[in-house]
């Protein structure tokens, strides 16, 4: 039941939101629907359904599902306080707002379906659905820049998704002689059970296509071109879910196929490919951070950087690498969405996203300013926060196994750290710049995320650690 709830609740809510005209009411329905979906997702931790041909809950995807529904819930609460301002300033009309809320639930449905699917074809369709719903939300302001961003996202995302489908077909071709014709050859659990008998060379080519296809959606350099524009031009709640969730969903798809390759003795090791792409993304994004003048674009590049670190960690694999990758992914989702919550209100009160036109936030808006400082300190990897822990794990385990790679990794981390600190100091300190009017914001989602990240930095509960260790072992 609960596995159907995380699919049906968003679907039903989307239908209702499409016809409710009052925006306060629909914002509330949006929050409630996300809360119900989150509770249903959390109940999956205790009560797990049978594995079928279409749906699957296992130890790996339940982590992603709970995280996705949690961040979607807090983001909907942030969105409720954010979106009213957009209506007042006339950037959105009530009709578009209705559309926005319905699409938010469609996106949640798509992501949940992609995570829960036990069928590689169904997973592909779900990722496509989630992509389409975010495309229309990125373009919702209908400015020239927003449409350009949506178009770019659309075309690059479509090409990526087409390549992923080609890879999916090749996996089917590899599975057919072993598993037999028909639906079973696309069922994930069947694939994994028989993976050792697949033709390794076909599997290798399939993985290249899947890596390029889903890698585009993860935002790995050099396939990242859509990501900064899509983050900068859409509504900020969408930037938060893009960074915090959609990138993870694509990463999840990649991890699934990586497990398939790991189960086949003749296939290439996917690790080195992922390590190269991860390091490339990290270092490239680190340098790109210096030249950003738009605050949302800055944090979009920081997402590319972090996806690079995460893909690197999963590429290094082993119990520690996978553990650190999972932790880093969780921490990044929580921290980056908290940052976007704060950035969204900052951009609203200042009326601009240009870093040069905002300054002295700690003086003019102390709560927002210090929230932003906390978020950036966390994302840059400063000690008391959880990101520091996971990055420390990644760096130290890499030093033990491949010192040369570790040097590159640390180099990238330091470059990015410097850039973030430089930008933060100009935004947070100094004399206040731009409008200093009061801000109507709900700070709860932002500080809830930061508190979680902070607590994770000091103390990870033993069951969580055991769980992550178990999943890390599954990933091989």
């Amino acid at each position, binding site marked *: 039941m609960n596995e159907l709830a995380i699919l049906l609740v968003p679907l039903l809510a989307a239908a209702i939101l499409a016809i409710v005209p009052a925006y306060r009411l629909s914002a509330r329905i949006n929050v409630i629907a996300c809360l119900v979906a989150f509770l249903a997702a959390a109940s999956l931790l205790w009560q797990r359904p049978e594995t079928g041909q279409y749906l699957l809950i296992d130890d790996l995807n339940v982590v992603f599902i709970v995280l996705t529904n949690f961040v979607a819930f807090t983001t909907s609460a942030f969105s409720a306080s954010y979106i009213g301002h957009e209506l007042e300033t006339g950037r959105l009309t009530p009709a578009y707002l209705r559309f926005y809320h319905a699409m938010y639930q469609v996106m949640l449905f798509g992501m949940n379906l992609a995570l829960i699917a036990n*069928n590689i*074809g*169904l997973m*592909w*369709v779900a990722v*496509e659905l989630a992509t*389409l719903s975010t*495309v229309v939300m990125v*373009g919702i302001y*209908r400015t*020239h*820049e927003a*449409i*350009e*961003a*949506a*178009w*770019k996202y*659309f*075309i690059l995302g*479509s*090409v990526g998704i*087409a*390549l992923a*489908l*080609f890879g999916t*077909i*090749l996996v*089917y*071709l590899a599975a*057919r*002689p072993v598993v037999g*014709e*028909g*639906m079973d*050859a*696309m069922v994930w659990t069947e694939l994994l059970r028989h993976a050792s008998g697949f*033709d390794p*060379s*076909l599997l*290798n*080519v399939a993985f290249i296509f899947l890596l390029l296809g889903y890698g585009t959606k993860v935002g790995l350099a050099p396939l990242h071109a859509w990501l*900064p*524009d899509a983050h*900068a*031009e859409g509504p900020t709640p969408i930037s938060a879910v893009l960074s915090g969730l959609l990138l993870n969903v694509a990463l999840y798809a990649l991890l699934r196929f990586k497990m398939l390759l790991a189960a086949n003795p003749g296939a290439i090791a996917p690790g080195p490919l992922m390590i190269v792409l991860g390091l490339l993304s990290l270092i490239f994004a680190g340098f790109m951070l210096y*030249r*950003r*003048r*738009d605050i949302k*674009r800055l944090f979009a590049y920081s997402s590319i950087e972090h996806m690079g670190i995460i893909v690197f960690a999963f590429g290094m694999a082993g119990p520690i690498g996978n553990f650190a990758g999972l932790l880093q992914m969780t921490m990044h989702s929580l921290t980056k969405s908290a940052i976007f919550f704060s950035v969204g209100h900052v951009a609203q009160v200042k009326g601009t996203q*240009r870093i040069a036109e905002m300054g002295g936030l700690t003086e003019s808006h102390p709560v927002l300013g210090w929230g932003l400082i906390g978020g950036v300190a966390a994302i840059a990897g400063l000690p008391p926060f959880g990101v520091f822990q996971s990055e420390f794990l990644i760096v130290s385990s890499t030093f033990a196994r491949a010192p040369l790679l570790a040097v590159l990794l640390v180099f990238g981390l330091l470059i990015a750290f410097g850039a973030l600190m430089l930008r933060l100091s100009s935004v947070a300190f100094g004399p206040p710049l731009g409008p200093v009017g009061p801000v109507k914001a709900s700070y709860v989602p932002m500080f809830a995320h930061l508190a979680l990240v902070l607590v994770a930095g000091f103390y990870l509960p033993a069951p969580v650690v055991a769980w992550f260790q178990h999943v890390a072992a599954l990933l091989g």
Partner: protein
Amino acid sequence: MISPGLDFDIAHMLAGGLVLVSFMMLYQDRLYALINVLALHAVVLALSVAWQAYIHDAPHLYITAAIALVFKAIIIPVALRRMVFRLGIHREIETVFGIGLTMLAGIALVGLSMEVMLPVTAHADPVAREDIALALSVVLLGLLVMVTRRNAVSQVVGFMSLENGINLAATGAQGMPLVVEISIAFSILIAFIVIGIFLFRIRERFDTVDLSALDASRGER
């Protein structure tokens, strides 16, 4: 069922025909002509899928063939033609490289896909094997069309031909489930793209040699 040899030859010919039509796209320099070639591409795909449905005795594939014929060979080309007319888009296509260079690149891509796919599919059955290799050629040629054209409509044409290549691969992989569903999902995607162009009046791709326009559209204001 006719003789297996003939089955194979016809399937092979139709898939090869799709590659040929993809090449025809590369040298079109008029938008209307390009749209006509796209319609032809879809017709060849429909024939190829219908032939697969016949030889493999898989009636559900006729649906995919029908979608290709009605939606991609008739509705979308007509919609694109009207759009070019209504939005007053330039009828001539700006290409990034010369035609000759693009054709050479296309030949190289076909060679590459044969080189990659034929060895790895050595154990698959021969029809699927040739189909997959030719389908990859169509996919790569579609990407080439997207990369070398500057205008939104011709990018959509490139994407659709890429997608036709994927449909060919999906139908060639014998007994693959969800083929019909996937072709419907793709049709929805394409409909979205076309509606998007129309609603937002995207005339050109956003890159241009005009530097001031470039600054404005880099988003770094």
